[in-house]
C-alpha cells in the first residue's frame, strides 16, 4: 500500500474574540499551510472542512470558506465530530487520497466561538449531551468530565493535586507558545485554590474557549515526491472509535473506551507500541482528560497516570513528552481547529522545527483527539 504524507501545516493564533468572520479566520491557517507546502490552489484536489456548526450563524460553512479561499470547483467535504472534527477530517483526507479519488486534500478546521453570545453558547452546550435523556437534568461539559474525574480519583486513590500537576505542566509550555490564548505561569497552589466549577474540577482544570483555525495538507507519496516536498511527514497509523453518548451506557468512569480502541487500531496499523512514541499531543480539554489519555494510550498502566506526571515524565525532558506546546489548557480549544493544531505541533516536532519545545530527534509522534465526553475518539500516529 502506498503512503500518504502531510506536506503542509498552518494555524492561526488562538484568541478570544477574533476580529473577523469565519472565512477570514480560516484564511489565516490556509495561507500558512499553503506557504509551508509551497503550493498553489490548482494543486489542491479537494477540501475537508471541519467544525462544530452550532457556533456559527452561517449554515453550511464549507461553502463560504472554500469560496473565500478560491478553492472552487474542487469538491468539499464538511465533517463534524465535536471536539475531534479535524482529526476525523484527517482520516477522511487520508482515505480520499489512499482510495485514488484525489491526489491531495486540504483539511481546514475552524471555530469562532465568539460568533454567538455567551448565553447562546451556554444553551448549545446543554444540547451537546443526549438531549432526550441527559440534558433535561441540567448538564454541562465540565460536569461530565468531572464525573470521570470523580470516578478516576475514587478508583485509584489519586488526588486533585495530581490533576493540578497537569495544569502546571501545561502552563510551563503555554508561556512559550505565542499562539496560545493563556500564557501566564500557573503554580500548584493557584490550581488548588481556584474556584470550583463542577466537583472535583476547579477553574484551573478547565481549558478556555478560543477562536482559531488550523490547516493540514495531505498528498499521495507520488505527489509529495513530484512536488519536491523536503520533509514529508507520513501518516503511519489511524484509529477511531465511538462510544454511547449517554453515560448510562458506559462501562467505565475511569477510562474512555473510544480512546483505548482508537489507540489500539492506530498502533496496530503503524506496527509499533506506546514505547515507540517520542512525542504526543493529547486532548486535555480538562486536566482529567490528559490523565485518562496517559492510560488509554498505554503511556502508563491503569492507575499509573499520577506517577507519570509526578515524575515529570511527560515534560519535554521526560520519557514521553506530552502537550509540550501548552495543550488545550494553554492554547485554548477552538473546537473544529483543535485536532489540526495538535497535528501541526507533531509535524513541526518530526521535522525538527519546533523551536523552544523541540524534543530530541523524534521518529514517531502521536495525536489523541476526543469528541464530546469520550463519544468519539481519534488517534493518529505520524512518522518521519
Amino acid at each position, binding site marked *: 500500500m502506498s503512503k500518504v504524507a502531510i506536506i503542509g501545516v498552518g494555524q492561526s493564533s488562538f484568541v478570544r474574540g477574533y476580529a473577523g468572520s469565519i472565512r477570514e479566520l480560516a484564511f489565516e491557517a490556509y495561507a500558512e499551510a499553503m506557504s509551508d507546502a509551497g503550493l498553489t490552489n490548482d494543486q489542491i484536489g479537494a477540501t475537508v472542512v471541519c467544525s462544530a456548526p452550532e457556533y456559527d450563524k452561517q449554515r453550511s460553512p464549507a461553502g463560504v470558506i472554500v469560496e473565500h479561499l478560491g478553492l472552487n470547483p474542487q469538491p468539499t467535504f464538511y465533517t463534524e465530530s465535536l471536539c475531534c472534527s479535524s482529526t476525523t477530517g484527517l482520516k477522511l483526507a487520508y482515505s480520499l487520497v489512499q482510495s485514488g479519488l484525489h491526489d491531495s486534500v486540504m483539511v481546514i478546521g475552524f471555530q469562532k466561538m465568539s460568533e454567538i453570545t455567551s448565553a447562546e453558547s451556554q444553551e448549545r452546550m446543554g444540547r451537546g449531551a*443526549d438531549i432526550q*435523556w441527559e*440534558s433535561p437534568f*441540567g448538564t*454541562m461539559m465540565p460536569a461530565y468530565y468531572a*464525573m470521570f474525574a*470523580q470516578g478516576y480519583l475514587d478508583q485509584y486513590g489519586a488526588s486533585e493535586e495530581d490533576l493540578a500537576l497537569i495544569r502546571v505542566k501545561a502552563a510551563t509550555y503555554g508561556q512559550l507558545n505565542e499562539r496560545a490564548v493563556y500564557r501566564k505561569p500557573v503554580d500548584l497552589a493557584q490550581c488548588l485554590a481556584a*474556584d470550583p466549577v463542577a*466537583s472535583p474540577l476547579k477553574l484551573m482544570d478547565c481549558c478556555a474557549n478560543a477562536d482559531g483555525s488550523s490547516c493540514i495538507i495531505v498528498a499521495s507519496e507520488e505527489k509529495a515526491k513530484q512536488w519536491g516536498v523536503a520533509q514529508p511527514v507520513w501518516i503511519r497509523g489511524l484509529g477511531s472509535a465511538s462510544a454511547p453518548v449517554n453515560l448510562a451506557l458506559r462501562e467505565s468512569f475511569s477510562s474512555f473506551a473510544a480512546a483505548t480502541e482508537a489507540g489500539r487500531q492506530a498502533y496496530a496499523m503503524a506496527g509499533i507500541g506506546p514505547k515507540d512514541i517520542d512525542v504526543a499531543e493529547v486532548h486535555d480539554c480538562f486536566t482529567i482528560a490528559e490523565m485518562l489519555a496517559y492510560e488509554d494510550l498505554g503511556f502508563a498502566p491503569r492507575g499509573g497516570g499520577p506517577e507519570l506526571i509526578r515524575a515529570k515524565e511527560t515534560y519535554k525532558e521526560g520519557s514521553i513528552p506530552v502537550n509540550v506546546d501548552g495543550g488545550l489548557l494553554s492554547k485554548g480549544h477552538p473546537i473544529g481547529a483543535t485536532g489540526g493544531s495538535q497535528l501541526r505541533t507533531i509535524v513541526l516536532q518530526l521535522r525538527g522545527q519546533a523551536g523552544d519545545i523541540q524534543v530530541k530527534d523524534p521518529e514517531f509522534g502521536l495525536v489523541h483527539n476526543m469528541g464530546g465526553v469520550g463519544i468519539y475518539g481519534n488517534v493518529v500516529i505520524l512518522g518521519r
Partner: protein
Amino acid sequence: MSGSKKPEADRRFAKFGTVSFTATTKVNDFIGYLEEGQVCGTKCVTCGSVFFPPRAQCYKCRDKARIEWFQVQGSGKLATYSELKYAPTGFGEDLPYAIAVLDMGGYKLFGRIGDVPLDQVRVGMELTPVAHELPGGQINYVFNRC
C-alpha cells in the same frame, strides 16, 4: 404493561426535566408511567435486551422485536457524580445540584441526586431512583436514600 399512543399529537416528553429539549418520541409512555410514580425502562422480549433509557426499537431484532415496559425497582450503587457550581441556561434556579450515574446491576441510570445532602454523597453508596415532580408541571426522576 401498556400505554396509550397518540402518534400525531403526543408531546408528553416536553414535560421531562427542568428544561426539555425534545418532545416527540416513541417512548412517550415513559412520562405516563413517571406521572404514576413509576420509573420504567423497556425490554425486548425476543432477545432479552434490557434498555435504560427505554427504547421502542431493538437493533438486535429489528422487525422481530417485541418491546415491553418494566418498572425499575430496588436500589443501585452510585457509580459517579458531580456537583455543579454553574448551570446551563434555564437551570440556574436548581443550583446547587449534582448529576450522577446509578448502577442497577444489569443497567444504569443517568440522573440527579435527590435527598442526599451534597457533602454526604459518596461513590458506591446505595440509592433508589424515584419519580420527582418539578415546578411548572415538569417531572423527572432523582436518586434518593433507600
